[in-house]
């Protein structure tokens, strides 16, 4: 299971979360493109829940639950739990 980011049909710009208009070209049509993971840029923990910011290869930085002990600077997987991003333990 991967995380599906939003890619502008007109110009290929990737965003997450979805915008109404593409920030670059103003396009309104989006396709979903899967990313399997990215680089964990930052992380913290609150009440036992680990949260991280993961840089996807398509560009967007995604806020996600981290279910592993991964350290910042390492590659982590990305998936979805409904609309919510999650990085599960491998």
């Amino acid at each position, binding site marked *: 299971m991967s995380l599906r980011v939003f890619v502008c049909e007109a110009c290929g710009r990737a965003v997450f*979360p979805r915008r109404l208009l593409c*920030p670059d070209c103003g396009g309104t049509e989006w396709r979903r493109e899967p990313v399997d993971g990215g680089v964990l840029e*930052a*992380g*913290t*923990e*609150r*009440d036992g*829940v680990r*949260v*991280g*910011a993961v840089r996807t290869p398509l560009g*967007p*930085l995604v*806020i*996600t*639950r981290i279910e592993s002990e991964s350290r910042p600077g390492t590659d982590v997987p990305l998936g979805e*739990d*409904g*609309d*919510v*991003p*999650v990085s599960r333990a491998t």
Partner: protein
Amino acid sequence: MVEPSDAVIVGAAESPYSRHPPEGVTTESLLADAFVRVLASSGISREEVDGLGVASFTLAPDRAIDLAWKLGIRPRWLMDDGNGGASGIQLLQHAMRAIDAGDATTIVLLSGDHFDSAAFRVLVDTYNRTTAQYLAGIPTGGPNVLFAMLTRQQMDTHGLEREDYGRLVVAQRRWAGLNPGAVYRAPLTLEEYLAAPVVAEPLHRLDCVPVVSGADALVVTAAGQGGVGIRALRGLHNHDGQEGDGLRTGIAELARGLWEDAGAGPEDVDIVSVYDDYPAMALAQLADLGFASDGDLRAFLRRRIEEERLPVNTSGGQLSVGQAGAAGGMIGLVESVAQLLGQAGERQVEDARLAVVTGYGMVLYRYGACANAVVLERR
């Protein structure tokens, strides 16, 4: 150059903040109390008020017009603003132009909120659609985790330790000790700051604003005798589409024009009020305004804040006075106006003449998107 305004702020008041307000207190009762207080402090009668602007998260489903009716005023100019930490300066930006244009002559601006813990949980999980859809389910449980990550990044970039942030928090608490309206007034040592329980590393309890109930108010009128003038005011919102590092706010981009309009610079101001939802963001705004021109944030905190006691957030700021929802966007204005009018009591900064105030906030996804700033002067 942005056209200057002839409007002046002639009164500032606060309905006392409280962590656990007595039974029967509501958002509208707090706003009404701030309204009554600000009229009393400025010597203006209710009949003279012909403009009303309101910022509140918890006034809904009521709006400014409901409040106008219940306060018994007949405004010619009416405005609701929902932009949180930027709402105070946002309301002022509109009010001063309404005064200049003659749409109104006497405008009261109100902001405030009353939360119980359930209402606060709902607010943080449904802050906007993006939060409800993409963050609440993680669960992030509010913005602390986001600003924890930003703080860590600022620490790594600038070689800051927790104790560096502590210098600002301790300094603000020292000011709060002189403010009878502050929720937390007891002197705070750096050791106590460091020993506070962890919230989300590297943030500990004293890095996070206490949620309180309260309200703030200002009166803006056409120029007359005295008051506080608005030398310059600029806003820049969504400056980077939430795709930057989150530590350079829109203030960095508006600062040059702001200071040019004001004909002054950071070195000229006597009072500084920055939006202090977290110490890292207060520091980011100070840097964006040009207060650490050499980029050495660590030396700035040690020298200017700790040793030289630069008057930053002289009420104690939200970190010590508390965050009363949208009133957090007006607390800096109210304190700066009080200082410039010579009404700041024990914490009065001698001969305060010029102040800079910032607004910041509205976390869209990763960090605050709204930013504005104003330079105020004693007339």
